[in-house]
Structure formats: structure tokens, C-alpha cells
């Protein structure tokens, strides 16, 4: 039997260890990805929380931009959390950093304000059994517009989109890796299992 495909976590900067721990808790094989060679060895990728400006600079400095685009366009599952969502977006209101331009949405950075406005709340996540998901938003981005191919998975009470999917691409404005609820990591691992 072939070994189970590995979920990579982009490990340039941010809370990649928390994602690796979450996958480990589910017994999903996982590995950090810092180079194009390491990217070639995984079947799916999480782009973690962190500082999107720093991560974008490092992506360019280390020649990862095109390999990441090719990886996502080949149909491999990619999940962006917070900064990861900014990087996967088609467009950013502020114009910088330059995103990967993969999922058809317009995103505003720090869309809910500065750190003192960071918050936690429960959200209903479409298709997720077991009740609402407790979501932690830290200097989180806000989705301003979405394209017709994007399926909304969760909204705040005021209607703001905070989770969405377009084919193999999953984005959440919040951080499931910061809490102990592993349902979304299991959901993402299942996207890889379906493909494999």
C-alpha cells in the first residue's frame, strides 16, 4: 500500500507549528514546506496564519511564488488561514502585498480593525457536523467581494463571509489551528483523501 499522502504547511513565517500539531493530533502525515523541493513532496498545502506582507516577501525572495501557483492550479488542495487567505486571494483592496491570485475574491487586510479589535465568536460552518465552530479572528482580513465560482461556507451574524471554497481551494479568515477543535483540519485532510 502506498504511504498516505502528506499535508505540507508553508513554513516561511507564522503559526505553521500549530497547524503541524493539529494534523499530528489527527494522525495525518504532515511536513513543513520551505522550498520548492519540499513542496514537490506533499499532496496538499496549508498556508498558515502570520504576517502576509512578510510571507509574500519571503515567497518571492526564495522563488516559491510560481511553484505555489502551479501546485494550486494542478488541483492539489490548498487551505489558507487568515494571512493564508490574503495570499490565495485574486485581489487585495490595499494592492499590496501581491497575492497569488488563485481564489476569485477581493479581500481587505485588517478588515475588522487593529489588534484591539481582534475577536472570538461562534460561526456555523456549512457541511460541518457537531455544531458551531468557535472561531478566533486576529487582525483578520475581510472578504469584500466573491466571484460566482466561490461557495460561501461561513458568515458572521452581520453577513460577512469568513470561510469559502472554490474547487480545491479553501479559505478561512479565522484560525482553527489556535483552538483544539480539529474538525476543519479533518475536513481539509478529507479533501486530499478524495483527490488521492
Amino acid at each position: 500500500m502506498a504511504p498516505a499522502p502528506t499535508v505540507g504547511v508553508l513554513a516561511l513565517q507564522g503559526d505553521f507549528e500549530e497547524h503541524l500539531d493539529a494534523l499530528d493530533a489527527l494522525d495525518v502525515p504532515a511536513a513543513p514546506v520551505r522550498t520548492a523541493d519540499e513542496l514537490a513532496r506533499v499532496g496538499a498545502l496549508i498556508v498558515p496564519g502570520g504576517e502576509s506582507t512578510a510571507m509574500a516577501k519571503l515567497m518571492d525572495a526564495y522563488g516559491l511564488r510560481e511553484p505555489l501557483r502551479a501546485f494550486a492550479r494542478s488541483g492539489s488542495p490548498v487551505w489558507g488561514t487568515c494571512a493564508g487567505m490574503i495570499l490565495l486571494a485574486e485581489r487585495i483592496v490595499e494592492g499590496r502585498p501581491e497575492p497569488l491570485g488563485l481564489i476569485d475574491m477581493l479581500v481587505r487586510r485588517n478588515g475588522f480593525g487593529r489588534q484591539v479589535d481582534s475577536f472570538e465568536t461562534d460561526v456555523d460552518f456549512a457541511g460541518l457536523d457537531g455544531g458551531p465552530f468557535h472561531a478566533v479572528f486576529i487582525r483578520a482580513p475581510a472578504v469584500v467581494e466573491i466571484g460566482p465560482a466561490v461557495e460561501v461556507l461561513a458568515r458572521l451574524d452581520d453577513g460577512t463571509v469568513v470561510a469559502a471554497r472554490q474547487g480545491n481551494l479553501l479559505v478561512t479568515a479565522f484560525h482553527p489551528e489556535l483552538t483544539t477543535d480539529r474538525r476543519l483540519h479533518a475536513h481539509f485532510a478529507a479533501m486530499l483523501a478524495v483527490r488521492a
Partner: protein
Amino acid sequence: MAVTNGKETGTYQVKSGLAQMLKGGVIMDVVTVEHARIAEDAGACAVMALERVPADIRADGGVARMSDPALIEEIIATVSIPVMAKCRIGHTVEAQILEAIGVDYIDESEVLTPADEQYHVWKHDFKVPFVCGCRDLGEALRRIGEGAAMIRTKGEAGTGDIVEAVRHMRTVMEQVRRVEVMPDDELTAFAKEIGASIELVREVKRLGRMPVVNFAAGGVATPADAALMMHLGADGVFVGSGIFKSGDPSARGKAVVKAVTHYQDPAAIAEASKGLGEPMVGISTRSISAEELLATRGS
């Protein structure tokens, strides 16, 4: 903590969570808007806005206070990454001012002249998170008990000498490893010995690590220094004087960032270390008299 429309703000989770977003990154001291741009462009995950870097504070002497809020606001308006700023140890009102102008993190810092030689700020009362310095686990857990959501080593700021940061990180990590395997019936005596609450010592044992993110600070001057601190277990690195007191801040900033990301890859650190020009002029901490040491302020 406040609750509006089912949203809870200012929780310990969102305060410590921002520190988690900074992991694997470099936080750079900046004194001008131009510095802030250079730092952001070099890949810094946050900047510390202040009027003088620690090397200049050390050289100038006198009383070092919170920076002009106008300068901090200018820097906030310039960069998209989080902006931190320093208040004096125990200076609750400087902290309130920094919260009011919207800084993302407050460093209650021994680099400034302490306002209170006995007590620190009660940080639980703030919505903005705090980072504090430590020399050992007891000091770290006392600060966390007061509400700090992130810890850094004190090192010896403004020297370019890494030896104190190494000593402090080694001490914290060694104590964490001891607690991890310590029998439960020895924890109370250990908590008393290090001056920390038993609850937080038990939390360290349960987690097998510090309860919050722990950065290195105080003396980092080269990419190799930064990578060394990562090897010793730091979650990331603060660079104070080391970048903007060097010959080529942009190149050195990028090199330190690369060394932190790729700290396990000596070839990458070697590449990053080439041709950076003059590092900051260092002062050996051994040559500094006891009363001029910053790390002994606040305990």
C-alpha cells in the same frame, strides 16, 4: 474583555494568538518612517517604534521614556505589519496612551528607565497585548501572571553581544525541561523557589513548554546570532540596534530574516551572511558596570 454582537474582544486567546502569528519572524526596532519601510521591505513580521535604539539610549544616558505618540502614529500609518511600542516598567499611563493610539503590542521594557522599581503594570486590564522580558522561568511566569501574552529574553540590549540572550534562553529552556519531568509533589516547592504561581508551573508541565510565545532579544547583531537563538528554542527574534546601527540596514535586515526562516540550513545562513558590510559596533557585556546593566531592571 468586552462582548459586542457575540464578538469577544481583548481575550487572552486573541492577545497570545497575535504572538503566535509573529512566530518564525523578526521584529525590528525602527526610529523613523523610513526605517519602518526598510524593515517591512526586508520581511520583518512587526516593527518596534521608538525614538532611539537601545545602543543610543545606552550612549546618551539620562531618563529613557515612551516615544512621542506622533512618531508612533506616523509609523502605524506607514506599514501594514503590526506596530509595537515600549512603555516604562510599571508606567500604567504610558501603557494606556499606547493602547489609545492603537499600537498592536506593548513592550513593558527594561530598555527604558523603570517608572516603578517594585511593581509592573497589571496587564490583564488592557485589551492590547503585552510582551515582557525575562532572564529565567520564574520571571517569565510572574509576567504572564500579570497578563503578559508574549515573553522575550532580556539579553543585554544595545550591546551587540549575544552572551546574555543565550544565558537567559538556556536558563528558561533548562527550567522548562526540568518541570516537564518533575514529579507533581515537587512542583509547589519549585514554584516557591522560582517565585511563580503553582498554577502556571503546572501549566508548563502539562504543555511541556512555555505557556506563551517566547522570542529572543537583547544583543542580536548578525544572521548567525539570530539563527543561534532559534537553535536554542526561541520562537522568533527581536533585533534592536543590530540592524539600523549597521552599515547596510536593508541587506542586514533581509539576511537576519532569512537566517531565522532557514535556521536549520547552514548553507542558507552562510549565503545570507556574505558581504553585509559593517555590523554594529559592539560592547562586551563584561565591560559594563553592574549599575549600567539593563537586564537587572524589573524582576
